[in-house]
Structure formats: structure tokens, C-alpha cells
């Protein structure tokens, strides 16, 4: 029994030693401090500023009205009144409008052929042409949404006129035009904005990447300077390696709990992003997310030989991880190989889970898969890290060991 207690107290003491040593390493390294504290707080603020406006408003378009009639002019006025686009130029010819488009002064052209009003008068289908600037997805979306909403409105107007000509008016005409109306409800982000969609994912990614980068840099630096500096206290050499891993993890965890609270709980509220998740669900979810990220970073960190290699690997993976998380490109349409590949990274489940709890108001039960996967990752990467350290201790028995 005494032996048992002795084991526990010595274990705790060793963990505490490694913990303080790790904190010392973090706080004496300018680069790591920059990444942990400046990076994780500055990036969200920059992203918040860049994506401040949810949607694009008043995109400039040009119109070419060959029909010069009352219906086409009414269409143009209504188009100008939409929030999406502004009719900035009235051109006489299509080539004039094309020149404006080439000069990037407008992002769309609406063209009314000369038979536009004739066809409407004859009760046929009138056609108008829309040319969209495709250099950005959002330009296309705005021009197209603006034009189609006016079209739907105009269609109803014309249909009512035609029914009136046929002698059907009032409620009867309304019913005849839309016998089965539908209402659309846009859930979780009513404005359909770019900000509410991308920024939550970026916030979670910033946490993952700064932690990953910081730990990578620490491991790389230790290796670079490793010939002379002993990182692990001499007396821990022949003890269980888990003490080192737990001690280090606790140091990162302690630093990141307040940072996560700021980035993922406070900032969505400050920026006015969706935040309908329950706090207790969020907190329960952040724990395995942080643990898995820390364990993953330590595993990868063991292979980082040089400080700057870590930075390059991290930068390079940032963009890839955003896509793998399934926020931009739906998970249902990912090739199978990349889907399983994405399971390697805690960010995939972390971002998915965070968005679903925070923006979609899911409970822990609905993110069960992600939650379990993060715990599995934590355990697995923890074991791998222990194993790697063990091998290193064994290999460099007579030398200082850097982790």
C-alpha cells in the first residue's frame, strides 16, 4: 500500500515538474508566444474585419434595353431596387456593356432583345439575357439572385394581367397562378451570409493550427538545440514515459482553455455570428478537441527535426484542412479516400462539431460521432506519442534527450 502511494505522489511530482518546465519553455520562446497568444487572438480579429459584411450589396450591373418598352423599363427599375444589384449603366449596345465588363466596372449585364415587349403582348414567353462575371462565386450568386427575384415578381404581375384578360380576377387568379405555393425557411443563417458560414470554421481552425504550430516549433527548437540542452530531467529517464506526455499536455491545456473561451465562445457573440449552442455542450466538446489536437501535435512534433520545417508543414496544411473539414465542400461529396484521410486530423471533427453545436444548435447526442472520434484520436495519439518518446529514451540512453 505504501509503495502504491509513493508511486502516485512521485508520479504527480514528476508530472508537475514537466509541466512547469514546459511552461518555462513556452514563455521564454518569443516565436511560440507570438503564435500562441498573438496569432490565436489576432487572426480571429483580422478575419472578423475582412468578412465583416455578410453579403455583397449593390453590385454594379449594366443594362442594354433594345426593346425600349414599358415592361423592360419596369424590370430595370425593379432590378435597381433589389438589395443585390445596382443598375449603374444604361448602354445603347451590347458591345458598349461588354467593354464596361472588360474594364471590370460592372459585374453583370442584363440584355433585353427588341422582341421582349412584343412577345409579352402576344402572350408568349419573352426572353432576356443575363451575363454574369464568374471571377468570384459571390458575384455570380448576387447577380443571379437579384435578376431571378425580379423575374419571379414580374412573372406574377404578367400572369395576373393575362388571367384578367381571360376573365379570371381576384383570389381566383391568385390561386390559379400558384396552386401550390411554398414558403422557404433558411435555417441557422437567415441572411445566407458568407461571414456566418466561414468565420466559425476559421475560428476553430485557428485554435487547431496555432496549437499545432506552437508545439511543432517547440519540438523543432528542442531538436535544433538538442545537442547541449537536456529537456527531460535526468531522474525521469527510467520512469514511465506517460508522466512526460501528461505533464506537457497539461501545460498546453492550461494555456488554451482561456484562449478557446475567447475565440470560440466570446468572439461569435462579439462578431454577431450564430451562437445558438448550449454552453455546457460546447465545453464538453472542447475538452476532447483540445486533447486530441495536443496529442496529435505532439505526435507530429516528434518527427519535426527543425523549427522552420514545422512552420512550413503547418502553413501548407491550413488550407487543406479547411477543405477536409467539409465546411466548404460537402462531406457527402468527398471522394472516399480523402474522407478517410480527413479522419486523421482532429480539426475535421473539431470544426464539424463546433459548427453544429454553435451554429446549428445541436446537442452532444447529435455530434456523437465527432465526439467519440475526438476521444479515440486523443487516446490513440497519446499512446503513439508515448511510444515514440520511449523509443527515443531507449535510443539515446547515454545522451540528453529532446522531445
Amino acid at each position: 500500500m505504501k509503495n502504491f502511494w509513493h508511486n502516485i505522489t512521485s508520479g504527480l511530482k514528476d508530472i508537475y515538474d514537466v509541466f512547469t518546465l514546459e511552461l518555462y519553455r513556452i514563455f521564454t520562446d518569443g516565436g511560440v508566444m507570438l503564435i500562441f497568444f498573438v496569432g490565436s487572438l489576432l487572426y480571429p480579429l483580422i478575419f472578423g474585419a475582412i468578412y465583416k459584411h455578410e453579403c455583397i450589396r449593390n453590385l454594379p450591373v449594366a443594362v442594354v434595353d433594345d426593346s425600349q418598352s414599358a415592361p423592360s423599363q419596369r424590370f430595370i427599375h425593379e432590378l435597381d431596387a433589389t438589395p443585390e444589384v445596382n443598375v449603374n449603366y444604361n448602354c445603347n449596345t451590347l458591345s458598349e456593356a461588354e467593354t464596361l465588363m472588360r474594364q471590370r466596372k460592372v459585374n453583370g449585364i442584363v440584355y433585353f432583345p427588341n422582341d421582349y415587349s412584343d412577345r409579352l403582348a402576344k402572350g408568349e414567353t419573352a426572353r432576356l439575357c443575363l451575363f454574369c462575371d464568374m471571377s468570384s462565386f459571390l458575384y455570380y450568386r448576387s447577380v443571379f439572385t437579384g435578376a431571378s427575384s425580379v423575374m419571379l415578381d414580374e412573372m406574377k404581375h404578367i400572369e395576373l394581367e393575362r388571367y384578367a384578360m381571360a376573365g379570371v380576377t381576384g383570389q381566383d387568379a391568385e390561386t390559379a397562378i400558384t396552386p401550390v405555393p411554398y414558403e422557404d425557411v433558411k435555417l441557422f443563417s437567415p441572411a445566407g451570409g458568407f461571414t456566418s458560414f466561414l468565420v466559425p470554421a476559421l475560428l476553430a481552425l485557428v485554435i487547431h493550427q496555432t496549437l499545432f504550430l506552437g508545439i511543432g516549433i517547440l519540438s523543432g527548437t528542442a531538436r535544433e538545440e538538442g545537442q547541449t540542452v537536456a529537456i527531460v530531467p535526468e531522474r525521469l529517464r527510467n520512469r514511465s514515459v506517460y508522466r512526460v506526455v501528461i505533464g506537457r499536455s497539461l501545460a498546453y491545456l492550461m494555456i488554451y482553455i482561456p484562449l478557446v473561451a475567447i475565440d470560440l465562445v466570446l468572439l461569435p457573440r462579439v462578431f454577431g455570428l450564430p451562437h445558438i449552442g448550449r454552453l455546457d455542450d460546447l465545453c464538453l466538446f472542447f475538452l476532447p478537441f483540445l486533447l486530441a489536437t495536443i496529442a496529435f501535435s505532439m505526435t507530429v512534433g516528434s518527427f519535426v527535426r527543425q523549427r522552420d520545417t514545422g512552420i512550413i508543414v503547418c502553413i501548407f496544411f491550413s488550407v487543406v484542412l479547411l477543405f477536409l473539414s467539409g465546411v466548404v465542400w460537402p462531406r457527402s461529396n468527398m471522394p472516399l479516400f480523402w474522407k478517410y484521410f480527413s479522419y486523421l486530423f482532429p480539426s475535421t471533427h473539431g470544426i464539424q462539431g463546433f459548427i453544429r453545436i454553435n451554429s446549428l444548435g445541436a446537442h452532444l447526442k447529435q455530434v456523437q460521432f465527432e465526439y467519440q472520434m475526438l476521444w479515440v484520436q486523443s487516446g490513440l495519439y497519446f499512446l503513439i506519442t508515448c511510444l515514440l518518446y520511449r523509443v527515443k529514451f531507449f535510443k539515446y540512453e547515454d545522451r540528453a534527450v529532446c522531445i
Partner: protein
Amino acid sequence: MKHLWNCFCRELGLIKESPRYLILLTAGILFSYVFFLTFMHEGQPENLPIAVVDQDGSYLSRRLCHEIDATQGVDVVAVYNSHSEAREAMQRQEIFAFLEIPAGTYSEVLDFKTPHLALYSNNAYLLAGTLSYKTLSTIGKLTSAAVQREVMRKKGYSEDQIMGMIQPIEIDAHLISNPWGSYLPYVLTTMLPGIIGVMALLLTVYLVTNEYKLKTEKIWLSTAGDNMLNALIGKLLPYTCWFTLIGIIGNMVMFGFSHFVCLGSFFALSVALLLFVMAMQAMGVFLAGLIPDQHLAVSVAAIYGMLSFSMSGFSYPVVSMPPALQAISYVFPLRHYYLTYADVAMFGATFTQYWSHLCWLLCFMMAGCIGGLLLNRWAKSNSDDAAIEC
């Protein structure tokens, strides 16, 4: 010229000695090309999972289900009995949208009453939400049109008259240079060269500061005849060539193999790529000159490099950013590369239209020169220190 050549050869020797970094970066770039081209090979997501909440259970509701399932855009993966079930499935991200058909829909249609369908889409996932909404709302409109047509047929209207009644206006949309509305050209044409640029930036900062860290700057400068400009050009030229070459091959793959549209000259695009890589390297020299500490310089370069993607405006237009950030966007070379790409490839612009972007890229050489001057000063002060120590 001879000094420049000497410096160039010295760098080649250094690469031969430890090719690790260059191999690592090249492998990373190749990986991202393979990754992104295979990852989104569909171009536009198809068969997105959606659900139908069928409380009606009638002939009409079931036919609607089949018709939705038959569209290319979406796939009906489940039929639920209640709204809450569907909402939970959405929170589990099993579906991106659902159509709710309330009880009594069919009988109301037969009685000339107006039943209401409800369409719910998940807007927290922009692309999937928008696309599945678009398909479902088309179905919604078609349902009305189908009922309308049946009624009018019974009343004895001709097919032409019916079409005129149902669809008085039609939009004929022309999507310039991306007729499929594919997602790939939006993202890849700017992002992949962007990744190359960021790698070039990081490598430049690392290599230049490394000379000072290893205290080999004197040898480096003497190889270049004590001329900082020669020394920098000679040192960075191998990487300029290498990264530009990869970028051009990458563009060949995108515009050739993947059939992205390039209306203008491919040569102009390659020149823009060369200038872009040079501009990123010049920014690297500038940062290296500004911050003598290698670790810090690489960290700052990493932060600057990562911001390029957001600030270039290919995903979120710069005109929608706050005015201060619109001004700052000019100091990111990727922004100018993106503008050149859009002008040349999407609109087939001629030199008179896109020259200003190339000039902007050339302006970054000034930053490189300032960096060179600063580096020169560090080298001088280092050798003075060494003299004092002696």
C-alpha cells in the same frame, strides 16, 4: 555579371548539399495540386442528400418525392414523418435541406384550395445549402406549374397559350468563362499559385536569414563581389526558376487537362506568374531585412503569407471589405495575380487592360531593394562587431 553567376553556382551547390527543403516544398506543392484536383473533381456538388417530410402520404406527395429524387442536384435519402426528425437529421448533417408536405395537400389541390409546402434549407453550409435550396425551389415552382397546366388543359387552352401563361419570362443566363458554374476554377486558379507563392516567400526568408545565422554572409557577399543586389539575385534565381516552372506546369494541367477556360494568352498568364513569384520573394527579402531574428522573421512571414489567401479577394470580393482593408489588399501580390488572371483568362483582356496589375507586381521589387539595403547594413554591422572582438 560574373559575380552574379558565381553566386548562382554557389546556391546550386548549397541545394545539392542539402536538398531537403526544396524537396519538402516541392512535394507539398505537388500534393496540393493532386489533392485539390481530385478532391473537387465533380466541379459542382451533385446528388446532395436531402429529405422529404411526407405528412400527406398521397399520390401527389409520392410523385413529388420521385421527381425530386430524379433531379441531378439532390438525392432523397430519407422520408420522415415529422418536422423534428428532419431537423435533427439536419443537425447530424445527414441532410442539407428538406421539403415538408403537410397533411391534406392533395385533397386541397383537388378542391382548388391552396395548400402550402415548406422548404427548409441549411444555410450554415453555404455551397451545399444554396445548391439544394435552388433545386428544391425549382421543384416547388414546377409543382405549381404542373397543376396550373392540368387545369388549363381541362379548360381547353392550347399548349402555346399554356406556356405563355405559366412562364411569361425566361432568363437566358450566360456564365462567362465558366459555363458549368463549376466550383473548381473559382478556387484553384488563384489558390494553387498562391500556395506556390507562400512557399517561395517562406523559403526566401529562411534562406536569407540562414546566411546570417550561420555567419556565412561574408562568404556569400564576397562571392557576389560585395554587391548585395548581385548576391540576392544570384541566391534567389534558382528558386524563382523552379517555382515558376512548377506554376506554369500547374497552369498547363488546369487549363489543358482540366479544361478550365483561358480566353487570353497563356503566355501573359505565365509572365504574371513569374512576376508574382518574384514579388513574393522580394517581400521575403524585405521581411528578412526588417527582422534579423530568423525564427521571428519566418513566423511573421507565415502570418503574412496566410493572409494572402483572404486578402486576394478570390473567395470574398475585396469591394465588400472595410475601406482600410481594401487599401491594405494592395500589399499582397496574390491580389494582383488574381486580378491579372481574371482579366486574361476570363475576359480575354489585352495588354492595354492588364498592364497596371503587372506594374503593381513590379512595384514589389522596391520592397526587395529596401530589404537588400537593410541586409547590407546588418552585414556591415556584423563585420564591425567581429572586428571589435578581434
